Each structure stands twice: as C-alpha cells, then as structure tokens.
C-alpha cells in the first residue's frame, strides 16, 4: 500500500471547494462549541452529529476532522482563561496556563497552546498515516479469537486503569453493556430487553445514547449545582509570542508529542497520563524551575502538545482496528456505523478513499485551526461570557433537536430523558461515563466476535485461546485485573523480605530489583493521582 499516493488522493478529495468549506465550518463550529464551558470535545461531536446527516459520508467526516481538533483546542482555551478544565486531559494545561493568564501573559499562553497543538497535531497525524496501514497489515491476519481478546482488553483497560474507582468503572461498564443488549439479537432474531415495545426492536440509537449521557446528563447536573457567582474571565488580546517564548516552547512541543502519540494509541492510554508526564518532564528539564507554579510557558507548551498528539494517536486504533479508546473516538465510531460503514481492519480496504480523505482533512483542520484561532481568540474569549441560562438551555435545546432528528419520533426523546437522568446520577455518584459509552458501542461487536469464535471451534471454549496473539492478550488482561492484588502482595512482602535478608547472597538481587521497579512505577501512579486532585481542587 502506498501511503503517500493514497494520502495525496485524500488531499485531492478534501481540497475540493465544497469539502474545504466543510472543513472550515467544522473547525469554527468545533472551536466555538468546544470553548463553551461544560462542553468537551465528545459532547461537541455528539451534538453536531445530526448536522452532518444530510451530507455524504466523505464530507461529513471531513467536517468531523475539523470538529475533533477544534473541540480539543476550544477546551484548552477555556482552561487557560477560566482555570476550570472541562475534562481531565486539560487539567494539566490549566495549572500553568491560568497562572500565566493571571500574570498578564494570556496571549502567550494561548499562542503556545495553539502553535504547540499545530505542531503536535501535524506530527501526530503523520505518524497516524504511517502507522495505521502497518497496524492494519498486522490486524488482517488476526482471527476472531484475537479480536475478541483485544476488545475485552480495550474495555477492561479503560474501565480498570482510568478513573479513581475501579468498582464504579465496572458498574458503569455493566450498565453500558446492558444498554447495548437492547434490541433484536443479530443471529437468532430474538428480542432482548425490548419489553414487547416494537420501537425498541432496532436497539437504542447510539447517537441518542451519547447525546443523553453527555449533553442532557451534563446540563441537568450543572443545573443542580449552578455556580451563582460569576467567574473571573481574564480579558485577552491577540495571541503572540516573543523570541524568548519560542525558544522555551519548541522543545516542550516536541517532547510532549513524543509522550502523547504512543499513549493515545494504546487501548487505555488516554491523554491524562502523557499530559502529566510531559508536565513533570518539563518541570525537571526547565532552566526556570522556579517559574513552575507561577506560570511557566513550558508547562503549557508540553502538555498541550501531548494532549493533541494523543488525540491523533487515538485515531490509530480507531481507524485501523475499529477500537475507540476515548469518548470522542467512540462517538466518531458511532457516526461511522450510522453511515453503514463497518469499522475494523477492512476499513482501509473497503473505504480507502474516505479514510484517506479523513486523514488529509486532519492535516487541513489542524492548519485551519492555527490560522483561524490565533486571530479569533478574543472572540472565543467573549463566548465564555454567554449567560449561563442561555448556554444550558441551548444545550438541552440542541440535544433534543439532534436526538429527535435522527428518527423523527418523540419516543427517542423519552429515552433521551431517561438516559439523561442516568447520566445525572452517574455524575452525582462518581461513576465514570466513558466505560458506559464504550460498553454500548463495543458490547454488540464483542458478542459477535465471541459467537463467531465459538462457532469456529464448534462450541469448545478452548477456541478462545486458539491463536498465539490471543493468548498473549489474555495474559495482559489477567495482569490488569489482578494488578491491585499483585500490588498488595508486593507491598506486604517487601518490608518483610528486606528485614529478613539484609545481607545474603546475590541470588536475591534480581528479586529486589524487580520489587523496586514495581514500587517506583506505583509511585509514579500515585503522584499522577495527586496531580489530578490538585487540578480539581483549583477548579
């Protein structure tokens, strides 16, 4: 497969005047909605899904590419100017970004975020274009058993690794899987969890579920706890950077990109860990460590780049394997299926032109982001002052409109309200939203692979580990599941062992080393947790 020529074809598709226009609209809409407080990129994409229904798939996905990066960038603008990150991946940006803004350097903070995002996005998208076909080549050789294992791994990793409570993560996953069961069973045609209602036979529309959980749940939750005192918004002029700012920014951009992409591409990577790693690294390497905590530009440049590179990385498993690993990718995957496009490794073969047009428009969207957002930053800052009643009424209004326009039936709005209430409850009691959404989307596909696997092995469960890769993945799954247990064992044994063996033969040395390695990695875990709670405490 010739990556370069495919990509050029993609550019040719994406640069037709109409499609270019859609890219511009996507970036502007994505940024505008992403800047609005309370609206993260996932919700932005979910709310704007219906707008793309009338378009043909290629144009729709070109618009998505713009919305994707636009929403990401919008989120970081909010966290710099308001110090209240809308989502966990921009928590780190807010730490130094808001300090910079308070010190009168909002323009530089926004500029380094925008240019850093551009650099990271461009490198990340290049890596995506190079890596995805390689992953596909590897993936087409995989059979159902390996797929089943990979999907289980992705679900478990997201559930067990991210978030503060594994138990609540699994509860959320269970609810998502149950919602995914609703409808007609694809193999036997049996109705499951439809309670005799014909309207449920086709299952719950994933757009309705996503809009309900993200938008309606969020609007209700914010309404219950609406901040009555107006927040301080820092006025901002035209973003620009001095020579010194450039000098201090370019290395963090590149290092942040290096952290972000691989983590984004992993099943449970997400953007939280790389943004935090980037922050810590910049703090350690900086020539001005004393500025950290008072608005160091490196502390914005690095994490922002990491965030955007992770966003590009996330698209690698999404396009190559059909595996979404964050909420935004999950919603985009839902959009794929609503166009009748089957996600998975065959995507590059069956929908090649579409995929390459999407990748090309990621480059274009990224570039547009830079030239549109640098001059428009003051306008976006004004959006932050939108009166809150209008903002949240508007979210409900457009959520309703979006969910209704999918099938034009009022019944969907009932589901929207019920699941919105569920989303409210989840926010109230700290159940993470992501496992639920992934459960809804991956659940049915997981079941399909399971049944295919056991059909091939004629019902013998050994079929589940009949491929070498599947075995390897099951081992990783087991480690993730047993990790807290292992950790406990290591902790319990370590002090005992060291007191027992103060000076014995070298045979115990390797054990000691492995013990300390796991201890160190645990410490890193713990401190990243601290970082999060720090950010939360600020907000």
């Amino acid at each position, binding site marked *: 497969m010739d990556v370069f020529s495919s990509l050029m074809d993609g550019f040719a598709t994406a640069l037709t005047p109409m499609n270019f226009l859609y890219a511009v609209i996507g970036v502007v809409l994505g940024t505008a909605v992403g800047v609005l407080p309370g609206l993260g990129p996932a919700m932005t994409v979910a709310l704007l899904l219906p707008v793309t229904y009338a378009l043909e798939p290629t144009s729709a996905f070109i618009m998505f590419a713009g919305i994707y990066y636009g929403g990401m960038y919008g989120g970081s603008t909010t966290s710099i100017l308001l110090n209240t990150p809308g989502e966990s991946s921009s928590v780190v940006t807010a730490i130094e970004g808001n300090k910079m803004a308070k010190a009168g350097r909002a323009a530089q903070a926004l500029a380094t975020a925008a240019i850093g995002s551009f650099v990271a996005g461009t490198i990340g998208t290049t890596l995506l274009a190079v890596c995805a076909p390689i992953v596909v080549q590897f993936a087409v050789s995989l059979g159902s058993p390996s797929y089943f294992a990979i999907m289980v791994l992705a679900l478990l990793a997201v559930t067990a690794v991210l978030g503060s409570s594994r138990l609540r993560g699994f509860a959320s996953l269970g609810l998502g899987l149950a919602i995914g069961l609703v409808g007609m069973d694809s193999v*036997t045609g049996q109705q499951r969890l439809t309670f005799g209602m014909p309207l449920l036979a086709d299952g719950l529309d994933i757009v309705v579920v996503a809009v309900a959980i993200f938008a309606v749940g969020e609007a209700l939750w914010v309404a219950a706890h609406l901040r009555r005192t107006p927040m301080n918004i820092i006025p901002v002029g035209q973003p620009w950077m001095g020579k010194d700012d450039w000098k201090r920014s370019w290395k963090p951009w590149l290092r942040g990109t290096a952290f972000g992409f691989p983590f984004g591409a992993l099943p449970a990577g997400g953007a939280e860990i790389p943004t935090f790693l980037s922050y810590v690294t910049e703090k350690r390497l900086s020539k001005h460590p004393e500025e950290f905590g008072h608005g160091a530009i490196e502390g914005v440049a690095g994490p922002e780049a990491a965030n955007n590179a992770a966003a590009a990385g996330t698209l690698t498993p999404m396009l190559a394997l059909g595996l979404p690993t964050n909420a935004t990718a999950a919603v985009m995957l839902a959009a794929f299926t609503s166009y009748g496009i089957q996600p998975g490794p065959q995507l590059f073969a069956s929908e090649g032109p579409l995929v390459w047009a999407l990748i090309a428009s990621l480059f274009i969207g990224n570039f547009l982001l830079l030239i549109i957002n640098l001059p428009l930053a003051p306008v976006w800052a004004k959006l932050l002052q939108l009166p809150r009643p209008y903002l949240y009424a508007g979210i409900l209004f457009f959520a309703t409109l979006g969910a209704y326009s999918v099938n034009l039936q009022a019944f969907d709005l009932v589901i929207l309200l019920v699941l919105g209430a569920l989303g409210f409850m989840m926010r109230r009691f700290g159940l993470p939203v992501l496992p639920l959404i992934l459960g809804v989307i991956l659940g049915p596909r997981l079941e399909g692979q399971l049944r295919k696997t056991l059909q091939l092995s004629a019902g013998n469960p050994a079929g589940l580990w009949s491929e070498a890769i599947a075995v390897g993945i099951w081992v990783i799954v087991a480690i993730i599941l047993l990790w807290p247990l292992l950790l406990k064992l290591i902790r319990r044994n370590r002090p005992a062992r060291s007191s027992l063996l103060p000076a014995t033969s070298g045979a115990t040395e390797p054990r000691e080393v492995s013990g300390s390695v796991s201890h160190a990695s645990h410490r890193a875990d713990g401190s990243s947790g601290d970082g999060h709670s720090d950010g939360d405490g600020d907000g």
Partner: protein
Amino acid sequence: MSSSPTVASRLKGRSELGVALLLGAAGVLVFLDAYGLATPYSKSDPVGPKTVPFIVAGLLVVCAVLLAVNVLRGGKGEAEGGEDVDLAHPADWKTVLPLVGAFIANILLIDWAGWVISGTVLFWGSVWALGGRHYVRDGLISLAMSILTFYGFFLGLGIALPAGLLEGIL
C-alpha cells in the same frame, strides 16, 4: 428496638445505596429477560443469545453487591466537578425539576403542536428554570431559535421537523 435507629443512622447520607439497588435491579432484569428467551440449541450458534446477557447480569449483580459493601464501609463516589459546577451547595431541585418539566412538555407537544411551538416552550422554560428573568427577551430568543432551526433543518439538511399546528403557515 435498638436496632432500628442504628439501621436508620447507617442509611442516612448513604443515598449511593440507591445506585447499588439500581445496578442490582438492572442485573436481575437482564437475567430474567434472557432467561425467558426460548432458544433451541443450534450447532451454528453454540453461544446463543442468552450467554452474553447472563454474563452482563452477573457483572451488574456483582458490582451492586460490592458497591453496597463499599458504601456501607464508608466509600463514596466523587461527584464530578466542572466549569460551572459549584459542589459547595447541595443539589438544587428547584432548578432541575422545572427543567425536566420543560423537557417533558416538549416531548408531549412536539408531534401535536410542532417543533416551532414545542421548541419555544422548551427553550423558554429551560431559561426560566435556570434563572433567566427577562421574560420578553427570552421569549423572543426562544421563538427565533425554534424558527431558525426549523427552516435551517428543512432547507439546509432536508430534514422536515413537524410543523404541527402551524402547518400551512410555515
């Protein structure tokens, strides 16, 4: 009767047990629904439509039990923060309930009265619930939003939202 006050005091402030109850109920529901499916064994589909629901039901019930234990031992889910969220004050039902009311009004009205009317009610009601008190200005904005989206969806996206009572006028 010393046990009842302790039970009451144990339950106090543990509204999270409701979540465990919901999970458990969902688990039982999924189980019963799958149990009721009649499926002859077929060689081409040894897993059948029941297996996965049983696993999901099991997961939900186990989570329900563990969560209940966790909450009774003093565990607590962290409420989600956010840009406009102030967790210092308790949930403000006087805002949420009218908001839900506006939402339900829209569901009841949309097919009969049409989107322009129901959307106006939804937006205006939501703004009012959230504390907007410029009745006329809010009303005009609501009406403008509904009409604009009605025509925007019809002309731009080719989606005909219901015109309802205003059929023929719009």
